[in-house]
């Protein structure tokens, strides 16, 4: 984080505490709204903690710093997770999280780039990777050391534009580009509706150096991000197998985990369970 180089070692316990904080923020936001794409958000909480508190170089006081590493959230509906991370990172005020999804709030249910820290309009799935390729090319033209990280989802691999972009990144040899493929196994109509496996082999076939990990294992995430620093002329793909609702059993097991909606008393109960499990960790 900040303007230094990414560290060579990581405090895994500290990163796990950050992930817990992100989940705590997300539960609070979802309670306020009564609903949301919280399953997906909880699933990538560990990844966002590793990115914002270990791997990314950025300046919370200067979000437009040209040399910052970029993080593009292609799945705009995961915004609840991004707002949590941006607040935890000090880019937006934590108090503002309570406005999530409210009329007039800049913390939209789906990301718009008018909010500080947002590098792309996500939500129209299949957009993020191509725009990440363009940003990586532009930074390369400017002789910048900044890297571009782009999250996209397993369902998003059904969009043809994802593969147009994947092919071009391999062709251009963009080794400062890292795709973070969140494979949580769900999409709007339920479990992934067409066979997209083998995911990692597909990325390898398009010229990407690819590693597949448990996307909720902090040590594995940090290790994969370390490997992705390799300047070997190839873009990097990290395939993260994540559990929607991770850390909140009532959401993990819900059939509604693509879009979760319960009444406020149930949210209170879910939050109480969560706090009991994490034991006041912060």
């Amino acid at each position: 984080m900040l303007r230094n180089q990414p560290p060579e070692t990581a405090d895994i316990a500290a990163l796990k505490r950050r992930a817990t904080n992100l989940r705590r923020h997300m539960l609070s936001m979802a309670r306020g709204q009564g609903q949301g794409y919280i399953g997906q958000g909880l699933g990538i909480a560990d990844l966002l903690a590793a990115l914002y508190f270990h791997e990314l170089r950025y300046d919370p006081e200067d979000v437009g710093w040209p040399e910052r590493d970029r993080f593009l959230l292609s799945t705009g509906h995961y915004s609840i997770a991004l707002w949590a991370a941006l607040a935890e990172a000090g880019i937006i005020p934590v108090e503002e999280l309570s406005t999530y999804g409210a009329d007039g709030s800049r913390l939209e249910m789906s990301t718009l780039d008018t909010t500080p820290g947002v590098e792309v309009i996500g939500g129209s799935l299949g957009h993020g990777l191509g725009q990440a390729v363009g940003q990586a090319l532009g930074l390369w033209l400017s002789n910048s050391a900044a890297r571009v990280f782009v999250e996209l989802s397993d369902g998003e691999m059904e969009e043809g534009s994802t593969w147009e972009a994947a092919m071009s990144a391999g062709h251009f040899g963009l080794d400062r580009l890292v795709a973070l493929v969140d494979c949580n196994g769900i999409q709007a109509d339920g479990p992934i509706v067409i066979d997209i496996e083998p995911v990692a082999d597909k990325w390898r076939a398009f010229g990407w150096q690819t590693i597949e990990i448990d996307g909720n294992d902090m040590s594995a995430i940090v290790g994969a991000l370390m490997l992705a620093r390799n300047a070997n002329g190839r873009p990097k793909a990290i395939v993260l197998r994540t559990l929607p609702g991770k850390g909140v059993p009532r959401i993990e097991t819900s059939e509604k985990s693509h879009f979760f909606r319960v009444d406020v008393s149930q949210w209170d109960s879910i939050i109480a369970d969560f706090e009991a499990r994490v034991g006041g960790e912060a």
Partner: protein
Amino acid sequence: MSAAMGQGRTLAMGQDEATGTGRPEVEAPFGQALAALGRERPDIVGLTADLGKYTDILPFRDAFPERFFNVGMAEQNLIAVAAGLARTGKTPFATTYGVFATRRAFDFVAIALAHSHLNVKVIAGLPGLTTGYGGTHQAIEDLALMRMVPGLVVIDPCDATEIASATRAIADYPGPVYMRLLRGKVPVVLDPAVPFEIGKARLLRQGTEIGIVSTGFMTERALDAASALEAKGHSVGVLHVPTIKPFDTGAVIDFAKSVRQLVSAENHVVVGGLGSLVAETLFDAGISKKLTRIGIPDRYIECGSVPVLQDTYGLTTRRMITTMANLLEGTLR
């Protein structure tokens, strides 16, 4: 259909994109202008989707190979990559055919470019009936599609002079632009001393009986048709409107008030393009005036030679003269 075709087939085949007006021509005015700009502006980046040779961008590639990227046949990615480049401070010019930039990549133009008002210039080849390859390649509805996109500037230049001038103007404009391209040998029609300005119409000819509001290469034909009718004693004006969006409503209203009736002329389907814009503009302003829309009919066009197709569907000078002579006859009686 067959009657109209029979009438059109009197023209010689194979005169691809030839104007036959004897005007001087410039080779690849867009590519030349972009290469010249590239020398002044290191932020300009060239992009294409496997149509570099066919969109006249090779002069830029040859001058600045390190700033030129061919993404292959992938128009969604073309626009996405251009958007990403713009976010790092570059000024990308992305070329493809109009059909692919609009029909294939519409979501990317709308969301990746226009929603964020990114500084990307989409340069679109084969506008309207400038190819005989049929409906797959003829961008007959691109102006209508693009003018619906909030915040997008939409330009249909007339000639080599305007293409060169507009290339510079859009590079200086910090936002998304869709510009139609005339490629290859492009005639010089307009006075090079008058620069193109985004959103500005140009009154090229005063007239009282008919006022032609035209865009793109139809302006050249409008001027020729107006001259021919003048030789027969008629007074026909021409207002050239190269910017479809933002539309110069003031100029169109003033022009409409100065003539007895209006004709719109566009190398585009008559639904949703210039003619529709003129009608909206007049109705909004409470002006009631007869409007005859010259353009491609509301249908897909077959394969064929360009001069024949243009004549068949009423876009040639000859057909414009006939159309307007009939209108004048009607008013005189």
